[in-house]
Structures are given as structure tokens and as C-alpha cells.
């Protein structure tokens, strides 16, 4: 049974965008007469490298929610779990380019890559320099050694944050791309899900998870994970996830990290904090210090029950950029 506050399922994405534009007209606008081409209200910002992203809907705040001061300049919005079109990505690119080129940052999904690559070629034809960073940090999605095959999930937040801060400082396109790569290379994520989601136009769950079951490593579209089994205690679940995350980079004694506890949609913040308690205990035990903790919804999957843990290993540069202020309709952070 689909229990959602929607009107016509096929109008879901566009009505959501109308709502977002109506709520935040001071921060966002759309271009090319297309609701799905979202840019900062003050775009283009001359003299700043512009950052664009995009991807399917159903993951708020991803992707458009990070368009704003200190983070991104524009976003091409696809249907639920669907890539935006190359033309939409191109329109966003044209609207945000401030003369210093555009960096694409999006998650490692086939459809998105194809469409953004097409957009990049078209943009080059219009003399806009485009570089691309494809984010992928879900350790459950491919083994160590095959990092290039990994899905991009909540950890992309750190890539946006650090690259966005770097661009705001006036760095050139190569520098901003270097920072995106640096952040991306130092972040790892792992998720767990307890319940499926219903895509409005489909009307029924796309997969099932039994009563009392969990799936460790599930992707944000329900991609299969590492292990399905009986729902364990919060501490056991966190331990299992951390056992996968920690050795992958690896994160080691003396490291300084930022942790992102991300709710997938229906999991209460209370539970995210119960889980963080265990993360903190594990990190303390390993001699790893935590600089900044984010707890909330940063990359969701509609009403999925579950959460993910992302960790960014910091060096001085990343730390400095992470602490910079940012202001988008979905994320505000005072400069620290």
C-alpha cells in the first residue's frame, strides 16, 4: 500500500520542484524554462569556478539541496532514480559558467555518466571548459582494488563541501578538481537498510526485506548489499559496518576524521545518535580523533528505513575547507 502525500505520481518530481522553488526563491531558480534545471539565484558568479551536479530524484537533500553558497552552483534533476538528460545538464552548465569553467561532480551511475559526458562535449563546443569528478565511495558496492566501480552515496556530501569551499576561495578549475579528487579519495561509506521504498510511478515496493531482517551494504536504490540477515542490535550493526569501512582506506591510529551519520529516510534521528555512540566508541578505541560530526539526512532514498556511515580522513587542507561556512536551502553551516 502506497502511503504518500502526492497528487498524480507522474507529476511528483515537477510538483516537488515547484514547491522547492516557491519555498526558496531567494536561493534557487530554474533556467531554460525547465523546472529540472536548477541553479543558484545569483548564478552565474563571475570569476568563480562553477560546480554542477545532477542525478535522479528521491534522494533529498541530494542533489539539488547542496546548490548554494559555499557548495554548488547548479543541478540537473532527473526523474525518481533516473538520470537527467544531457540537454538539462548542458543548460545548467551554460547558466552557471562564470568564465572559469565548470566542474561536474556526480555519483558513479551509468546513466548519469553517459548524460554528463554528452553535456560536457556539448559544453566544450560552446567554449565552456568542463572537468568531471565521478564520486564513488560505497565500500559495499565493489571490493578494494576496484574502487572505480563503486557507487556514489552519502559521502559525496564531503566532496561537494570541500570542492565548493575551494571554488569559493577563487581557486582555478584544476585546483578545485584536485580537491574534489582528494576528498573523494579519503571518504568511505557503508549503509544498512531495513525496508524498501516505493517509487511513486511504480506504486509498489521494488524489492522486499523480510520482517526482522536487515541488509548490510544496500545501495540507495535498493542495490543488493553484502549480507542479508536477522536485524541485530545497533551496536552490532555499527560494528559490522565499521569493520568494513576502517580497513578499506585504511583509517588508522592518529588520524583525524569527520563522520557523517546519514538517515536514509524513515529512520529517526534518535536512532542515528544511538548508532553514533558506538561509532565514537570504536574510533576512540582505535585512537582516531573526530573533528566534526554530521547527523541527519544528507542522502536519502524516499522513505527507506536505514542509515549510512561515511568517514572523511582529514589533512590540513580538507579540514580547513570543511570548516568553511556554507548556506543552501537544505544545509547551513557557520564558519568554524
Amino acid at each position, binding site marked *: 500500500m502506497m502511503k504518500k502525500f502526492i497528487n498524480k505520481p507522474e507529476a511528483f518530481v515537477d510538483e516537488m520542484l515547484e514547491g522547492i522553488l516557491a519555498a526558496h526563491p531567494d536561493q534557487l531558480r530554474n533556467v531554460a524554462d525547465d523546472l529540472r534545471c536548477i541553479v543558484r539565484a545569483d548564478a552565474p558568479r563571475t570569476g568563480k569556478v562553477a560546480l554542477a551536479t545532477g542525478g535522479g530524484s528521491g534522494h533529498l537533500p541530494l542533489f539539488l539541496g547542496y546548490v548554494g553558497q559555499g557548495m554548488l552552483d547548479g543541478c540537473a534533476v532527473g526523474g525518481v532514480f533516473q538520470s537527467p*538528460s544531457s540537454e538539462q545538464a548542458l543548460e545548467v552548465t551554460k547558466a552557471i559558467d562564470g568564465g572559469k569553467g565548470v566542474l561536474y561532480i556526480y555519483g558513479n551511475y551509468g546513466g548519469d555518466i553517459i548524460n554528463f559526458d554528452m553535456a560536457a562535449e556539448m559544453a566544450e563546443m560552446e567554449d565552456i571548459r568542463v572537468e568531471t569528478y565521478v564520486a564513488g565511495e560505497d565500500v559495499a558496492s565493489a571490493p578494494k582494488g576496484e574502487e572505480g566501480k563503486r557507487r556514489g552515496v552519502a559521502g559525496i556530501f564531503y566532496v561537494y563541501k570541500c570542492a565548493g569551499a575551494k571554488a569559493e576561495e577563487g581557486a582555478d578549475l584544476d585546483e578545485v578538481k584536485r580537491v574534489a579528487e582528494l576528498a573523494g579519495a579519503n571518504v568511505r561509506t557503508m549503509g544498512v537498510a531495513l525496508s524498501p521504498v516505493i517509487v511513486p510511478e511504480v506504486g509498489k515496493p521494488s524489492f522486499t526485506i523480510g520482517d526482522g531482517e536487515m541488509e548490510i551494504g544496500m545501495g540507495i536504490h535498493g542495490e543488493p548489499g553484502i549480507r542479508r540477515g536477522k536485524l541485530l542490535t545497533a551496536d552490532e550493526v555499527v560494528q559490522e559496518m565499521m569493520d568494513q569501512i576502517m580497513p578499506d582506506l585504511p583509517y588508522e591510529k592518529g588520524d583525524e576524521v569527520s563522520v557523517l551519520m546519514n538517515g536514509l529516510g524513515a529512520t529517526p534521528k534518535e536512532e542515528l545518535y544511538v548508532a553514533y555512540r558506538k561509532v565514537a566508541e570504536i574510533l576512540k578505541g582505535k585512537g582516531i580523533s573526530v573533528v566534526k560530526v554530521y547527523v541527519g539526512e544528507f542522502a536519502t532514498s524516499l522513505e527507506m528505513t536505514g542509515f549510512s556511515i561515511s568517514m572523511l580522513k582529514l589533512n590540513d587542507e580538507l579540514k580547513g575547507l570543511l570548516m568553511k561556512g556554507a548556506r543552501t536551502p537544505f544545509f547551513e553551516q557557520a564558519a568554524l
Partner: protein
Amino acid sequence: MLTIETAKRILHTLNETMAQNQDRLIEIDSAIGDGDLGLTMSKAFRTADEQMADADEDDPGMLFAKAGMAMAKAAPSTMGSLVATGFMKGGKAVKGTPDWDAADVATFFRAFADGIMERGKTRPGNKTIVDVLDPVATALEEAAGRGADPAGVAQAATEAAARGEEAARNMTSQHGKAAIYREQTVGKQDPGAVAGMLIIQGFFSVF
């Protein structure tokens, strides 16, 4: 053998083919993907047919290229964008030729297949539409080389497509949503390969 009228007839036929095969593609894509392929293919080809039917255009290459652009806008899924790329690259490769011969058709599909391989960063053997289109392009080059008539060209293409689709079944998916299932995809039809075969069948059914 292929003029602007033929090209429009091809687009119309492909629209019908994809509408008829919508449920079949949904089913095949559901087995190792997200099940949307039937919808995106029928939408892509319906849009192309509708927008090109009355197009004021007499160059078949340009018509196909524009059809590709219409598809890219209407159906930006993996296959929607790849097939759109194929039509754009193929069309541009034969631009300026009002009546195509067998060699032009071969050039079109070679560029079509290569365009998809480049865009998808793939090659034959990875269980994709390319495993249909690459042998089709080769068969067309061979048929054109031996001076086959339109019916012979069509037969060579459709047979190569069917063989390619069949061969793809035993491969392991390396791209997109299906790649997640890896070994489990062996023995199953590749949705993109089936869609590619339908494109070839529809395209050559007009000859």
C-alpha cells in the same frame, strides 16, 4: 535504397516495434536491471517518430541525427542516451547523401556502434547492445562489399543481430545496474541487446 521517405518510415516502424515490445523489454530489464527499458524505448521512439514525421528535412542523415537529439531529451536513461548517441553519430557520418546505398547503411551502423562504444566506454563482450550492433556493422560492411541487394543487406543485418543477441546471453554484465548481479546474469538475455535487435529488425523490415 534509403531516402528521406524511407527514413521517416523507419522511424515510424521503430515507434510501433517498441510500443509492441514494451512489456517484453520491461520484463527482461526487470530480471537484471530496474525494469524501465520498455518505457524508455517506447518513449524515445514515439518522440522521435512524432517530431520527425513532418520535419522539413530531406537529408536522411540529418533526420536520424535530429531524431537522436529528440530521443536524448525525451528518454535520458542509459539506453535512451546511448541509442540517441548512435542515431546522432550515425546520421552525421552519412550527412549530405539524399539516397543511401548499402555502403552508406554500413557506414551509418559502424558510426552508430562505435559512437555507443565510445560513449559507454565499452567494447564487444561486456553483454550490452554493442554485442548486437558491432556484428551488425561488420555484416553490413561485408554485404556492401559483396554488392548485396537491399533484401540481402537486410537479411545479413537481422541475422547478425539475432546471433549477437544470442551470444550476449552467455556473457557477464559489466556495466550499469546489471553489473551488480555479475555472474547471476550469465544465461539471461541482456535487455539492451534485445532492444538493439529490435532496432535492427524494425529498421530493416522496411526494405
